[in-house]
């Protein structure tokens, strides 16, 4: 068996054409149940070796810093890097088109069978699990080193306001996000240029 060291292999080359990119994203999207990102990392870095692990981590970090679904932002970034605007359409088309059509088929199925006891029960079971999966993901996020700051209080405040006091997320975001970003900017500035003592 071959040992895999994706980050140490020589310069990654990328897909040969937008068509290949489209098919690759379509394939990885269809393998992604409950999140496409892990599949995308495996497919793009380890299997196809289109980019190094470091490059992927970098793209992902930028995708997380901006609004929007992370995997969609990754598609925009990689598509643009390899084929410009055509690449963006290829990556996003591959990512969204077939899963969207599948979703529509499921919705039609849902409409006709939602009142069948077995289907309704199965959906209730999945909904209960899904709620737990989201809570688990939020809990996992609290382990990030980015939470080791008093800014974690902004997160607690947002949680209490939206889930406890039923405040709309829009004003919560519009107030908390700028404050938290300014505070992050301030602490980075003071860290980089320590005041003389």
């Amino acid at each position, binding site marked *: 068996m071959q040992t895999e060291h994706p980050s140490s292999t020589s310069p990654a080359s990328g897909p040969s054409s937008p068509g290949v990119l489209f098919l690759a994203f379509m394939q990885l999207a269809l393998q992604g149940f409950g999140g496409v990102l892990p599949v995308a990392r495996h497919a793009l870095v380890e299997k196809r070796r289109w980019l190094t692990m470091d490059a992927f981590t970098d793209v992902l*970090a930028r995708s997380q810093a901006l609004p929007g679904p992370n995997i969609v932002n990754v598609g925009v970034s990689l598509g643009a890097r390899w084929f410009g605007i055509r690449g963006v359409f290829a990556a996003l088309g591959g990512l969204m088109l077939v899963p969207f059509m599948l979703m529509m088929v499921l919705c039609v199925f849902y409409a006709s069978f939602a009142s069948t006891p077995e289907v309704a029960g199965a959906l209730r079971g999945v909904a209960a699990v899904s709620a737990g999966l989201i*809570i688990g993901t939020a809990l996992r996020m609290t382990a990030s080193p980015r939470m080791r*700051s008093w800014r974690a209080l902004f997160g607690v405040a947002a949680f209490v306001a939206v889930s406890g006091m039923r405040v709309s997320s829009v004003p919560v975001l519009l107030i908390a996000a700028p404050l938290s970003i300014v505070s992050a900017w301030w602490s980075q500035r003071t860290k980089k240029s320590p005041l003389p003592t």
Partner: protein
Amino acid sequence: MNDRLSILALDFLMLSLLSVGGAATLLPEMHRNLVEVHGWMRSEQFAQLYALAQAAPGPNVLVVSALGWQVAGVAGAIVSTLCMIVPSCILMFCADRFLASSRGQSLREILDNGLAPIAAGLLGSAGVLLARTADINTIALILTIAAALISWRTRLHPLWMIALGAALGAVGWV
């Protein structure tokens, strides 16, 4: 119908640039708009459509397509999905090169550090909101708590837990 489509479009256009950490962080806001403000679906339907999207392959943002479909059919699904992702895609397309530069690097860290706690707090709210509608009995509540603990503490693939939830529900336990 056209009214519905344009309201749907405006709602999701507004959410696109606010979706820090992905679409799931804004589920409480979507619930507020679609269930509470417009009355286009019941809370259980909202939770079931989310469940449907979780059980299907593809990006998690497709929950927006399912919600749009419930409001205005395939046209609603297309409109809501495009409005949700196009503004954030344009921002990513325009800002990506700068964020990748050495000057952009520190801006990226600032945005990451500033937004991560808020994204976590809002995601937690989304989970609690769904749990409120989904946990109609003790077994559902146990499923939610177990899924939360397992996905927090282990690397087990979520599909196993989704399959277990579907199976328990189909035999009438949930």
